[in-house]
Structures are given as C-alpha cells and as structure tokens.
C-alpha cells in the first residue's frame, strides 16, 4: 500500500534530496492547477503548458517556501502569476457575453443544448463554460473558492488582495456567473441551479 504523505513531508523529502517525491506533490495538485490554468488559457494545450511551468517554478523555488504557510496557497499564487503572464504574452482578450463573437458561439451552443437536453456531464460542461465566460479574476476567485476550497484569507494571500476585497469580488463574480448561466441555459437554469 502506498504511504500517504502530507505536502510538508513531501517537500521536506524533496529538499533532503529525494527529488522523485516531487511527482507525488504534482499528482496531488495537478488537477486544480490545471483547472485554474484553463480559466485563463481557454484551451487544454496552453493550460497544460501553464500548469507545467507552474510546477517547474515551484520546484525551483521550493527552498524559499515558508513551511508555516499552506503549500496549496503558495502554489496557487505561482499559478495565478504564471497564468497572468501568459495572458499578457498571448494578449488574449477576456471573453465578454456582449461581444459579437461570443454571442454567435453561444447561440450555436444553446441550440444544441435545447435539442439534446442535458445530462450530468453536459451540466458540468455548461457550468465550466459559464465560468470561462467570466473575466479571469472572477473565474479565478470562483474556482479557488468552490473547486480549490480556499478560504477568503487564503484567496487574498494568493492574489495579494485583502480578504474583504475577495469577499466583495466573490459576491460580484457569483452574480455575473448567474447571469452567464441564465443567458446560456435560459429557463433550464432553474433545473440546474
């Protein structure tokens, strides 16, 4: 049976020269880091590149990690910074529901949805799509709060903002997310939410 180590134990082992143990750390966090990267990159290839870059950066800086903090929060700070740098580099436009391109794309999607109904898989796809339609900051806060199960303080620490600001931003992000879902699903939003 594989022994389960905590993040801090794994970090200590890596710092003591057992670099192979880093693979366990990667496995433990790769899904969330990748999901967060996907909120910025919009396609899986770029998101995987960002996530890979994050883990390499974290490995390089592992010696500077203050072991009093949570590794996940520290890793998400790196993810956020790397993803933002990626966005700046690629000059990706933040998707807006009002933009013409998005409207065309959404209408196609909605017609397909109305015709086929939805299953659990589809509903998750729609929820993810709605998050993707948010501005990167809103999408990050929603993802960190719901999928990363981070507290307001931890999100604030990762994004370098006050917890109160996170609270306000989270509230606004939820409102926007609801609007996007209503737009995407129309009446069927009530079945989903």
């Amino acid at each position: 049976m594989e022994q389960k180590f905590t993040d801090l134990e794994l970090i200590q082992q890596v710092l003591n020269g057992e670099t192979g143990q880093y693979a366990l750390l990667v496995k433990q966090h790769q899904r969330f880091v990748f999901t967060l990267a996907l909120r910025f990159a919009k396609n899986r290839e770029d998101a995987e590149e960002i996530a890979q870059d994050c883990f390499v950066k974290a490995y390089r800086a592992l010696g500077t990690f203050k072991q009093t903090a949570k590794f996940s929060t520290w890793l998400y700070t790196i993810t956020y910074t790397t993803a933002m740098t990626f966005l700046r580099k690629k000059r990706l436009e933040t998707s807006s529901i009002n933009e013409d391109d998005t409207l065309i794309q959404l209408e196609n999607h909605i017609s397909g949805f109305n015709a086929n109904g939805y299953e659990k898989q589809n509903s998750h796809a729609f929820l993810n799509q709605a998050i993707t339609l948010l501005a990167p900051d809103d999408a990050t806060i929603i993802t960190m709060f719901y999928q990363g199960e981070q507290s307001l303080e931890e999100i604030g620490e990762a994004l370098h903002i006050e917890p109160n600001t996170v609270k306000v931003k989270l509230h606004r992000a939820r409102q926007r997310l609801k609007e996007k879902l209503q737009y995407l699903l129309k009446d069927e939003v009530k079945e989903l939410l």
Partner: protein
Amino acid sequence: MNTIEQQLWDYIDGNLDENLKKSIEEKIDSDPQIKLQYEEFLKFNLTFSNLDLEEPSMSFTRKVMEDIALVPAPVSLKTKVDTRIIYGIGGFFVLSILAILSFIAYNTKFTMPNFDFDLTFNFDTGKIITPTTINIFLFVDLIIGLVFMDYFLRKKTAQKQL
C-alpha cells in the same frame, strides 16, 4: 454594499457574527421571498462545489518530472538572517559614532561671547590609540567583514540554485 443578497451570501459562507446571523435567520423564516432566494443560493453553492476538476493529460506528471530533471535540486534556505547580528553591527556603528561625537564635543571649546571657537585637541591620543586598541578595532572589523561575506556568499549560492 450590504444588500439582503450580500447578507445571505455572508450567512451561507459563515461570515456573520451572532447578532447578524440571528437577524438573517429571522428574515429567512418570516419572508418567503428571502427564503426562496436563500434556497436558490444554497443550490448554487452545492452545484459549484460539486463541479469536477479538469484532468490534465496522462503524461502530465512525467513531463513535469522530465523538466525538473534538468533543474538543480532545490535546497532549504537555512541562511535565516539573525536579526541580533544586524542589530549588533548597527549598535557597534552607533556607539562608534557617539564615541567620536562625544570625543569631539569634549575637546571643543565654545566661547560664545567672543565667538572664540577653539577646536584644539588637548587630548593625548597616544594613550587611547595604542597597538592593543588598534588590534581590537581591526579584529572587530574582520569579524563583521567575515559575517557579511558569509551572508553574501550564501545568498549568492542560493540564488544560483533557484
């Protein structure tokens, strides 16, 4: 911004104190509209909390491990700067400056009425500046220099490894 909506979210997230919590609970119980909104928010929370995380490709971990194989292994930065050393060095210089200033003040003759500003040093420096004091001074300097060099070299090595 403290709308009922915000209060409901704060209640759900557990960000309210006891008084506000009781007040919002009363509102939920008494107002069907607020209750409906509250239930809607709970459902929203549940839906997004159950949202699955995306899975990267199967080769993701392997790719990361291949990348880090090219990077020098990380080491713990044990070179925590001891603040006592910094304060010690600072204190030494402050005391030196104070000693010099006191020495100057002691040997300065202020004669304000005639503006006779006599700065002659009637001080036998030979008594103070002896080979022993010079050796002590140089020894302290040497220690401070070594401490700084050690700090600098450790920092440089750590930066190279990152």
